[in-house]
């Protein structure tokens, strides 16, 4: 059954990815401890464990490169946790290096390629140098012998943790706990939380006493610096009993005190084989019907985003069904059947309610916290700061802010480019910072929060700010603006020049960051996600970029309009109002049409002209849809307003990538497709300048 092996392999890739991410977070934490001069042995242990697990899985699934790398990392980490090698910055860098190589290996494995990723051999070579032999020295310092009974149920890994704790002089405790199976997870989490502040729980041993269906009894083995009274104060309760395990080896039944029925104590202490019985009878167990097969009880499910997309598609189709239902109801009423019509409308309302619930439910599943991408950025910041030799303090807030998973995936590149630009061009080098009285470490602050139907992400640095005159010079030189513009552009407009192609890249590629990635690419990418980007800057103080994104790409409310025979959808979150238009009060300034709206001028854009469509009745009655994007407004002229509708936006394929002005297409019912306008792109196109915009539009027309 090749199918199930393939599924298992897919699981393996997911799990390997997760483990690598955990390992990475672990390394970041280790990095912090080095800076703070603190020692945390559990971190190295966790790293060891992660790599060890990865090695096991890689072996199982035949991922040779991964297995090899894990094996050598494991050796090094073992040396580290045994204290035979010191954790220096250099060693940590090496460990960080392995994360990238793991990433490449994973990509290669997924693609089924046999190719060895570059850098693997070198990395393994350096690891071996540091790793050395891992055979434990026979004369390891142990103040006392561990009770064989205790050892009998510990894995080698746990025994090692126990010994290291003892070597550091910690005390051993046994926590006897009794939990209800129903609330087990919560109770466990709670006790882990509380115990964490006082020491380390090494293992959990279920006691044979209570094997009822309702409750579970466990002995927890814990190491702590604190003395008994403190632990009792912190942890003991009616369900938790705390006892100290005496150090002296003479007490044979150290781990199993009088609390256990002798039978269980026997089982722990009897080293050779044997299946000891329980002295006491266990409670009579009422068997649940055996044909109820209970599968894994874990709470979370890993979901393939494509399945969610399919579900979303179906919701979209149901939305169309719902619309048809409403139209039928109207027709029935028109044909003189008010009774049936109201019934239909009632059904329609019910349907609508349930559909919204389902839609919300699916959207909720698609939402993931931004922290996912922020964490990856931490690593990148560290890397870049080393490359460019600048000390950077990276502050993240709002990482629990949630956004559609698909958006998150596309965000990491633009964010990374912005941060790289910030570190490269924004943050001054140490000498200059000292000269202007700034702290040695440059700060980059990443903040995210939800604002209505949008998520806002801010990236702020305390660097030198954007040099406006240099920016203008460059734009002039590239022909993006002319001399008159130079006088007339507002500050905001000058800063926006960085979003023009070619302006924000270096003239000459330098060694470290090449030309840099243009902000125009970043802006386009953000645009594809339905978002906008803004820049603010103060010379000498810093620069702040603000990205505003829709919370979800999936379903949006839109206004359907018609130009000639063609239907378009305009996302409602960009629409502030729609009004009838009779052509009066329109002025033409600099080639652009403007109309007055409540005392302010509103630039107009005739969709028919912009898109070269047959216009119906050019001087007749039309409608203006006022689109607001950031601080800019644009009046979009259309022939008809059809109405509001929830739509599922589907992205246009790559072959249409060069077509500007649309953020996708949606199904309108009866297999008809309507294009979804991208108000931000339109605003930019029209407001940039009447002439050059049209030129651009024509060029793209190909």
């Amino acid at each position: 059954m090749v199918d199930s092996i393939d599924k298992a392999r897919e699981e393996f890739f997911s799990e390997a990815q997760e483990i690598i991410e955990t390992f990475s977070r672990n390394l970041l934490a280790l990095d912090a401890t080095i800076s703070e001069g603190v020692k945390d042995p559990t971190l190295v242990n966790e790293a060891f464990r992660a790599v060890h697990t990865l090695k096991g899985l890689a072996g199982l699934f035949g991922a040779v490169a991964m297995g090899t790398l894990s094996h050598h990392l494991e050796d090094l980490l073992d040396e580290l946790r045994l204290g035979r090698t010191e954790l220096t910055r250099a060693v940590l860098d090496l460990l960080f290096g392995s994360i990238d190589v793991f990433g490449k290996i994973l990509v290669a494995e997924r693609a089924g390629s046999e190719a060895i990723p570059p850098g693997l051999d070198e990395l393994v070579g350096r690891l071996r140098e540091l790793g050395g032999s891992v055979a434990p020295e026979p004369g390891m310092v142990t103040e006392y012998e561990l009770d064989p009974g205790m050892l009998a149920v510990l894995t080698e890994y746990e025994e090692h943790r126990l010994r290291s704790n003892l070597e550091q002089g910690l005390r051993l405790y046994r926590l006897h706990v009794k939990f209800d199976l129903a609330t087990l997870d919560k109770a466990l989490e709670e006790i882990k939380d509380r115990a964490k502040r006082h020491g380390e729980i090494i293992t959990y041993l279920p006691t044979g006493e209570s094997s009822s269906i309702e409750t579970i009894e466990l002995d927890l083995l814990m190491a702590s610096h604190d003395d008994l009274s403190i632990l009792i104060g912190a942890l003991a309760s009616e369900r938790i009993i705390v006892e100290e395990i005496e150090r002296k080896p003479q007490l044979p039944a150290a781990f199993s005190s009088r609390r256990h029925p002798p039978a269980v104590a026997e089982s722990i202490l009897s080293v050779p084989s044997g299946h000891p019985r329980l002295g006491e009878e266990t409670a009579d167990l009422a068997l649940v019907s055996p044909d109820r097969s209970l599968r894994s009880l874990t709470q979370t499910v890993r979901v393939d985003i494509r399945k969610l997309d399919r579900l979303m598609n179906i919701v979209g189709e149901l939305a169309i069904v719902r619309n048809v239902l409403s139209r039928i109801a109207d027709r029935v009423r028109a044909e003189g059947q008010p009774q049936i019509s109201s019934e239909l409308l009632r059904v329609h309302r019910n349907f609508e309610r349930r559909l919204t619930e389902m839609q919300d439910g699916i959207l909720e599943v698609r939402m993931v916290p931004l922290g996912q991408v922020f964490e990856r950025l931490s690593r990148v910041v560290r890397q870049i700061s080393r490359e460019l030799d600048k000390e950077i303090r990276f502050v993240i807030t709002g990482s629990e802010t949630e956004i559609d998973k698909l958006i998150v995936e596309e965000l990491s590149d633009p964010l990374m480019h912005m941060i790289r630009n910030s570190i490269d061009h924004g943050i001054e080098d140490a000498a200059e910072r000292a000269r202007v009285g700034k702290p040695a470490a440059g700060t980059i602050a990443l903040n995210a929060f939800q604002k209505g139907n949008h998520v806002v992400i801010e990236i702020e640095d305390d660097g030198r700010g954007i040099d406006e005159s240099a920016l203008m010079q460059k734009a002039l030189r590239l022909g993006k603006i002319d001399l008159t513009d130079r006088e007339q552009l507002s500050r905001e407009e000058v800063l926006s020049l960085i979003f023009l192609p070619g302006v924000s890249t270096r003239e000459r590629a330098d060694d470290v960051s090449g030309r840099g990635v243009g902000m125009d690419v970043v802006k386009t990418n953000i645009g594809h996600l339905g978002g906008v980007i803004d820049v603010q800057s103060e010379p000498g103080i810093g620069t702040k970029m603000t990205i505003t994104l829709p919370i979800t790409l999936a379903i949006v409310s839109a206004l359907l309009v018609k130009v000639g025979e063609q239907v378009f959808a305009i996302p409602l979150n960009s629409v502030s109002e729609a009004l009838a238009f009779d052509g009066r009060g329109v002025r033409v300034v600099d080639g652009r049409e403007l109309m007055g709206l409540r005392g302010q001028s509103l630039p107009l854009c005739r969709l028919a002209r912009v898109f070269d469509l047959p216009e119906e009745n050019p001087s007749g009655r039309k409608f203006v849809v006022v689109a607001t994007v950031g601080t800019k407004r644009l009046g979009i002229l259309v022939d008809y307003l059809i109405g509001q509708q929830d739509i599922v936006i589907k992205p246009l394929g790559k072959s249409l990538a060069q077509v500007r002005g649309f953020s996708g297409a949606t199904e309108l019912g009866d297999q008809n497709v309507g294009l979804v306008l991208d108000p931000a792109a339109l605003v930019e196109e029209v407001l940039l300048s009447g002439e050059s915009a049209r030129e651009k539009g024509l060029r793209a027309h190909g």
Partner: protein
Amino acid sequence: MANLTRVERRGHLRRAAAAGPIREFLTFTLSVDLYAVELTTIREIVSPPPVTHVPRAAHDVLGVCSVRGVLVTVVDLRKRLRVAAPPASSRTRILLSKTGSGEVVGLLVDEVRQVIRLGAGEIEPVAAVLGGDISAHVLGIGRPGNDPIILLDLNSIIGA
């Protein structure tokens, strides 16, 4: 491939097994000529649903349409290959294929004919017999019978 109907091979198409593997091709007409693409590259054949024009798209892109909820970019194959484009008839069809980037592209053709099998020996490599852009997309000329069939490289056409 629910929509694919295979027509029986004609007698004269059955040849002695030529050297090399037998490949299956779907033949269709564009204007007056017979073309074919490898069967494995086609996912489905549909009757053209309403196609929405996409302003500013390339001249050979008819627009987009929806097939069971999936957005399809429709390319007029006659325009892409720069051959005459007769008006649509009831026999016009769209061949659906998927590019490497996951985009579903539909090719508009005048009429779908049948599936034929060709051995390597029945395919002539294309010398500069055909001029213009088309030669870049041609795999060869098939001659199972008398009439030549221009074998197209679908992936090259849709830019997979």
